């Protein structure tokens, strides 16, 4: 049986190709922090405290748009709700781990950690080797994310606004959006979410995003229910 050490290294090696996406994404988040209204230190700290790129970008953008506190708090949390699905899927693999491990390992849970873990875990696997593979993936991503966002914040002040790098925020969300659509009900959720967000642009301080999200989830759920009843 593979040792804990082997499994950790296996996790590091498996996640290495994904860093080609993590590094530019982290740089973009860092550059955006430096180029917009959010305090640089507070913006940088989101990488440690929140550690979820799309949610961090949404917060940075909403701070820049002077959104009210409830919108600033609710939007990133709603974006991260998808992680509840990951947590549910990993729970069956983690249930033999110690309560302490169950307490701190979820901090490292991201889209990438989830995908890599689910692709490699075997149902009958020793909980210790599961833990070290997950840690190999998770700590590599965490370290890379921290380094990339830090470099982004440092060099970001030098980037001229004529480069329109703020447009990368929309592009990141479009890429994540394409990945989140697996079937027709999800496409409908996206179309309704996008259209309602445009129609509610005049609503104060970003509240339109909340209305649009509720409308999109409702549309997707109804369509899903009609297809599956």
């Amino acid at each position: 049986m593979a040792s804990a050490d082997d499994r950790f290294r296996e996790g590091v090696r498996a996640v290495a190709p994904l860093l080609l996406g993590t590094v530019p994404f982290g740089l973009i988040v860092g550059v955006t922090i430096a180029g917009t209204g959010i305090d640089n230190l507070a913006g940088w700290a989101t990488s440690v405290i929140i550690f979820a790129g799309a949610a961090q970008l949404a917060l940075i953008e909403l701070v820049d748009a002077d959104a009210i506190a409830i919108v600033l708090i609710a939007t990133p949390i709603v974006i991260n709700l998808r992680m509840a699905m990951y947590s549910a899927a990993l729970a069956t693999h983690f249930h033999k781990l110690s309560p302490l491990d169950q307490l701190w390992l979820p901090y490292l849970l991201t889209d990438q950690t989830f995908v890599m873990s689910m692709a490699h875990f075997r149902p009958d696997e020793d909980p210790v080797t599961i833990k070290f593979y997950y840690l190999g993936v998770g700590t590599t991503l965490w370290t890379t994310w921290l380094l990339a966002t830090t470099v982004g914040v440092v060099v970001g002040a030098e980037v001229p606004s004529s480069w329109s790098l703020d447009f990368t925020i929309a592009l990141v969300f479009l890429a994540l959006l394409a990945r989140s659509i697996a079937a027709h009900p999800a496409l409908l959720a996206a179309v309704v979410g996008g259209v309602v967000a445009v129609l509610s642009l005049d609503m104060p301080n970003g509240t339109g995003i909340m209305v649009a999200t509720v409308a999109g989830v409702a549309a997707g759920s109804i369509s899903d229910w009609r297809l599956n009843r």
Partner: protein
Amino acid sequence: MSIWAIIVIIGLGTYLIRWSFIGVLGKVGVPAYIERPLRFVAPAVLAAIAIPELVAPAGSIDIGFDNLRLVAGLIAIAVAWKTRAMGPTIVAGMLSLWLLDWLF
């Protein structure tokens, strides 16, 4: 409310979501009426943030070829749909925007 308080609340909320099923809910099972709608949160909220950035980059609706971010965004959507990858989407979108900006 200070930005630090807001960041800490989001961090705690995000942690609780990550921990939820691993920590407690996994032991009681996931009810379908929670699990199914959760799958539509990501597409709905991501579109709600991204689409207005293309259709109304300056704050009011602007649909036409003079809206360069809309044109570049549509090209990026095609690439995102085809590749499902972040790198090519960002490269295609930024190159399109710079090229359009230079042409017009």
